[in-house]
């Protein structure tokens, strides 16, 4: 019974990134924080996951198969999960990226050079009400 309760209370994250190594590192960092993680390397898998889970946290690369398609996915995630923390990883965080982030309702934006551990720590720290 306790195990079932723990599973129900467990938070879930979605990580969408074309690079399998990056996915593995993100999964490790999220697991260390007690977050169950669903991984996707492409848009169809990510969209399927969105229909089947509630995500408290999502970390999305700005490029999945084409440059910029991650922004649209992040916007869909915001519409599907209005209270969740949505992070985007982009090549840079200039004016255009920040504008995209605001207009897609993104919670935080990180450069590719940011370590996955740092992205996860930032995501969990900035949404304490939703991810414990």
């Amino acid at each position: 019974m306790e195990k079932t309760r723990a599973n129900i209370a467990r938070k879930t994250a979605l990580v969408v990134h074309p690079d399998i190594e990056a996915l593995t590192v993100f999964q490790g960092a999220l697991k260390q924080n007690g977050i169950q993680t669903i991984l996707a390397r492409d848009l169809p898998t990510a969209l399927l996951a969105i229909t089947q889970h509630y995500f408290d946290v999502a970390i999305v690369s700005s490029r999945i198969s084409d440059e910029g398609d991650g922004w649209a996915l992040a916007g869909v995630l915001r519409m599907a999960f209005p209270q969740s923390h949505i992070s985007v990883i982009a090549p840079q965080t200039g004016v255009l990226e920040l504008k995209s982030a605001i207009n897609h309702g993104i919670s935080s934006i990180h450069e590719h050079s940011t370590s996955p551990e740092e992205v996860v720590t930032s995501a969990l720290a900035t949404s304490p009400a939703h991810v414990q």
Partner: protein
Amino acid sequence: MPLRPRVLVVDDETSVARTLRMILESDGYRAITAHSCAEAVELFGNSHRFDVVITDLNMEQPNIGLNVAQAALKLKNRPVVIICTGFADTENLQAAMKMQVDYVVTKPADVPELLQAIRRLLAMRKATGA
């Protein structure tokens, strides 16, 4: 008949504020204008309720539109907050993102994009009850 959404347009350039007001009114909104941060904040304090606040950034001081946005975001009935600026930079956009501004439009504003964003954000607000 439901009340038309009420929009506050804040811009120190009278012609810009007036043009935006006319565009919004022709799209079915009730729109009023303010020409400074101080004027906008005074309206917030006078129990006016706004569904949308569109503010310029550089008015009586550089980036003072962020103060308008912050004051609007603190209102009990939080309106949709949109920044409309010709002077976006990483510093003011990071500040806008941190305070959870809903949308940024760069001048010269793409009117169909702006109207579509307002419709979408209001619909989302209604759907989520936020």
